[in-house]
């Protein structure tokens, strides 16, 4: 279930380019942690390094430690496939598998690694995941239709259902609402608030009101200039960040003086 993630001295590279430098942070379980900052500051890169999705890009690598529940995620004997099974991810653009039905999309993760499930068991998983993602009532009569036929907000909730169906410990969300309208955004935010009882949630967002609304802790990333590595400038409880931040740069950013 929900687990704490300790990050220490994390440097993230694209080839020789140092994109994010020296991140130290402890992400609390059963809470929502928001990452904010201007474009290109490395917050998405940092998020992707938490479930080893960063290294999918050719030449991309990481130095430092990410420890979840005592296990070093970048340890020599850690399989990235295992890491990703325990740390789910929701992407900026809804990406249900277009060739699969709604049902198959939700169960896709559970069918991996040669696992076999009885029909009743997988029906149960699908229903629970879709209920968990507040989508069940909208799609229960058309589970065999393609997931790509849903609206953008529904597709994103389908992706959340897919991510929680495998029972991960942590849920990473990379700007999950940036392609959605305000109503769908509200639905996803309500959902996040429900899900934080069961998962550790980390969300990257460009929407500062969103960070203020949903998160318990907020990290502010910034960079000194183009070509410079991004850094975690400040990490504090959300109320403190938005009312009385420690750093001048944080205050400038959240008050709209730049970015």
């Amino acid at each position, binding site marked *: 279930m929900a687990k704490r993630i300790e990050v220490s001295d994390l440097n993230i590279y694209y080839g020789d380019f140092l994109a994010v430098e020296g991140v130290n942070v402890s992400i609390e379980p059963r809470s929502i942690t928001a990452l904010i900052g201007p474009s290109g500051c490395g917050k998405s890169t940092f998020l992707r390094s938490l*479930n080893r*999705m960063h290294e*999918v890009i*050719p030449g991309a690598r990481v130095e430092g430690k990410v420890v979840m529940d005592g296990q070093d995620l970048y340890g020599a004997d850690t399989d990235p*496939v*295992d890491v*990703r*099974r325990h740390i*789910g*991810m929701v*992407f900026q*653009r809804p*990406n*249900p*598998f*277009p*060739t*699969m*039905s709604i049902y198959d999309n939700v169960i*896709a*993760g559970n069918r*991996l*690694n040669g696992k076999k499930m009885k029909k009743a068991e997988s029906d149960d998983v699908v229903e629970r995941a879709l209920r968990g993602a507040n989508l069940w009532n909208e799609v229960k009569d058309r589970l065999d*239709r*393609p997931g*790509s*036929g849903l609206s953008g907000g529904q597709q994103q909730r389908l*992706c959340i259902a*897919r*991510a929680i169906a*495998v029972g991960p410990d942590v849920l990473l969300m990379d700007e999950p609402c940036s392609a959605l309208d305000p109503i769908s955004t509200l639905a996803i935010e309500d959902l996040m608030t429900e899900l934080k009882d069961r998962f550790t949630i980390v969300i990257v967002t460009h929407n500062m009101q969103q960070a203020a609304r949903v998160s318990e802790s907020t990290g502010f990333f910034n960079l000194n200039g183009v070509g410079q590595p991004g850094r975690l400038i400040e990490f504090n409880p959300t109320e403190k960040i938005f009312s009385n931040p420690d750093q001048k740069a944080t205050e400038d950013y959240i008050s709209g003086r730049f970015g």
Partner: protein
Amino acid sequence: MTATKTPTERPPAQRVVRRAGDRLFAGSAKGSGIFILVVLAGVAAFLIGEAIPALTAPAEDVPGGEGLSGYIAPLVLGTLLGAVLALLVATPLAVGIALFVTYYAPRRIAAGLGYAIDLLAAIPSVVYGFWGLAVLAPALVPFHVWAADHLGWLPLFAGPASTSGRTMLTVGLVLAVMILPIISAIAREVFSQAPALHREAALALGATRWEMIKMAVLPYGKSGVIAGAMLGLGRALGETMAVAIVLSGGAGATLNLISSSNPSTIASNIALRFPEATGLGINTLIASGLVLFVITLAVNMLARWIVNRRADFSGAN
């Protein structure tokens, strides 16, 4: 009067403004489309017109003396047998090569391998024919013998094994090598375009690389692979020179792949007989060509049907 009225009748906003370049492009595109149809119709009309005498001729006048269908049926069988065998061998191989090049090989090796495969398409078919005759056929003789001994219970390998290796099996394998670059080039192209969005979705769920390929790459590339396979099948069906050189055809209809008596294929039969054919013989050969034309058309329509069948799930919506 008219001059003053014209602007009110046709306000400028309703007039379709078309630039010269647009008109030129639309015209040439339309012209190309019509041109293709005219050529196709011309070929079909020629084939049908020339085939009619053979279609209406009494059975004993047709070469072979068993009527037109008796003449063409073994050729159709030979054509399909060789082409399907080639397709069955080449498609999995081509998909494997394409996946290796796009998702497994280090980038430097991948580029080199890609060029090497493409180079296969640059070899003239007559060279493939001689290669099949001089190298592949003798090399396959031991396999023919083995297949006759161990797989003889299958009609395909009933034997007796050919001692020269100039069999339908060898032809199928030569054709497989010939169509390999077509299929793998198209498969490579569609696989490399599988959206990163869906590949990352699969990986983030904890898919291994192979599972990611099964979930996000193969479904996306399926219609492309089918299209490539049909192009390859089209080439294999119509291949003339390589088949004419390798195969010692002319026997009746048989499914036996490894004996020395094989049915010929339509295209190679036309190539071999046409120079000496006269009168009704020519019409008969053209009628067989018409059959090949219809088969190829049917294959393409089948491919299109397969591609469209699950259009809902293709990701195009």
